[in-house]
């Protein structure tokens, strides 16, 4: 394994130190417990939005802290959920008095650590809601699994909810909006190569020179199925169709009921895409795939959507949710409504997503 690192155990800290040195105008970094927060936090009267998860997916989440997006991000060790004290520390730092939303990717580790953080914060009377992102259609059912993983839709939810918070939405409204983004977003990923976690030092899985892994998550874990290498047009078609033809995913999730002050099991159903729907398309690199290849994916994706009567009205193409050095890509399609479009277009100024500012 060759990487631009010193000790594998210092990567997360040293990388945070680099961010702190590079962008003092935008963000501040707390090293122990580790979290990044807006330089101007807390923003009084604004709902604060916090996310986090294992490191190795940069720019998710640390690159999305700033005006119009996240108030704080909690990076765990590489591919390891952050610990409750990180979320609690971030919560204290960005609490502007209008409540806090945790945006949590649906992995058992993330869910449990964020839940523990919420329990701790609530015992201090801090108002917190959380929304799970579970958009990965490669995971077919939720009965026999942990449920779908949270992938590309996460960053879309962070952007849209961040804009809503900036515009003065209430905590309750933002949490509903976040849930709406989640159930309208679907993703599918694939890998040409595995990634190499620095601590292990060898690729997480072996894969042949003529093989690809479809339905991969973002942790270098093996995917849904192994197949022989195909052209990008075929790969794009397989991914796009698994998303578009994914009908009504149904699962129960735990959400906090503020009135009853307890966890509730809530059933959520994804509405299917329909002809005429307006979409945001995210074509995402897993890290090692060149930008030019992503545009070839987009080319085919646009053609498929058009054929299906779906209109891509916004897009984002690049390395946004990565798995270290993995080569491969993912597609996320999010069904938009007017409100989401307006919030998507709102100004944002973070290290890795910026417009209008």
């Amino acid at each position, binding site marked *: 394994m060759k990487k631009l690192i010193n000790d594998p*155990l210092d990567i997360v800290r040293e990388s945070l130190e680099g961010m702190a040195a590079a962008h003092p105008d935008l963000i501040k970094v707390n090293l122990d*417990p580790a979290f990044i927060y807006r330089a101007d936090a807390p923003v009084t009267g604004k709902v604060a939005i916090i996310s986090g998860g*294992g490191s190795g997916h940069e720019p998710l989440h640390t690159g999305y802290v700033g005006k119009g997006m996240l108030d704080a991000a909690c990076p*765990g*060790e*590489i*591919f*390891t*959920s*952050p*610990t*409750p*004290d990180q979320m609690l520390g971030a919560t204290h730092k960005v609490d502007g008095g209008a409540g806090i939303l945790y945006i949590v990717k649906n*992995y*058992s*580790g993330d869910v*449990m*650590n964020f*839940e*523990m953080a919420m329990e701790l914060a609530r015992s201090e009377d801090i108002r917190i809601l959380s929304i799970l992102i579970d958009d990965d259609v*490669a*995971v077919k059912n939720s009965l*026999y*699994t*942990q449920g779908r*993983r949270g992938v590309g839709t996460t960053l879309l939810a962070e952007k849209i909810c961040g804009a809503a918070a900036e515009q003065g939405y209430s905590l309750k409204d933002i949490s509903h909006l976040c849930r709406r983004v989640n159930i309208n977003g679907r993703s599918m990923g694939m890998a040409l190569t595995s990634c190499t*976690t620095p*601590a*292990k030092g060898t690729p*997480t*899985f072996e894969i042949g020179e003529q093989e690809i892994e479809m339905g991969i*998550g973002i*942790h*270098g*874990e*093996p995917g*849904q199925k192994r197949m022989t290498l195909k052209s990008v047009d075929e790969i794009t078609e397989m991914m796009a169709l698994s998303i578009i033809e994914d009908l009504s995913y149904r699962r129960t999730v735990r959400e906090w009921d503020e009135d009853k002050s307890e966890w509730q099991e809530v059933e959520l159903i994804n509405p299917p895409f329909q002809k005429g729907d307006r979409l945001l398309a995210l074509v995402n690199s897993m890290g090692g795939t060149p930008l030019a290849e992503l545009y070839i994916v987009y080319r085919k994706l646009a053609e498929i959507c058009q054929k299906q009567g779906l209109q891509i009205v916004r897009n984002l193409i690049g390395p946004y949710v990565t798995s270290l050095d993995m080569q491969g890509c993912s597609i996320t399609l999010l069904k938009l409504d007017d409100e989401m479009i307006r919030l998507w277009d709102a100004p944002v100024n973070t290290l890795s997503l910026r417009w209008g500012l």
Partner: protein
Amino acid sequence: MLEQNKDYLTDLDAAIGDADHGLNMDRGFKKVMKQLPQVSDQDIGGILKAVSMTLISSVGGASGPLYGSWFLRASSVVSGKQELDEEDMLHLMEAGLDGVIGRGKAQLGDKTMVDVLNPAVDAFGRAVVSGKDMLEAMEQAVNAAEQAMKDTKSMQAKKGRASYLGDRSLGHQDPGATSCYFMLKSLFKTLSCPDD
């Protein structure tokens, strides 16, 4: 023991997870080892609670909250004790298991830590009921844990990261179940001969 098996656990996790379990456990338990001297004057409940807090804030991942919950609940039933008899140990293990299930909602057969913790409690309980002493009961619990750990190979994962693999998780031993076996083994060692 965890340190020696760090790579082994990580390799198990690479096969059906994300290749970090060994590192997570090693990071957490190294911190615990560092901290133990500072809390050695406390009762067993206090020590276990301190261990819990350290694990919660340093392991992360799925295993952090789960191990943390095991120790937290375990600590709550032995608070104030300086020594544990067979009964205490049984309660401790039962409480720990409850903690893990309460946090992770896994059922028996889901190919998780629970599949080791549960049979270990059972074996310990049976041994105590049949009049075995602490060391014998522990031995049986560890033996049961070892067998149960191996049995996770033939299970299909329904919780955690490995569940995404569907039937491709078959044939692989669960990393969390494996670390539980190591943990039980060394915990028993520590608790039974605290001066080692």
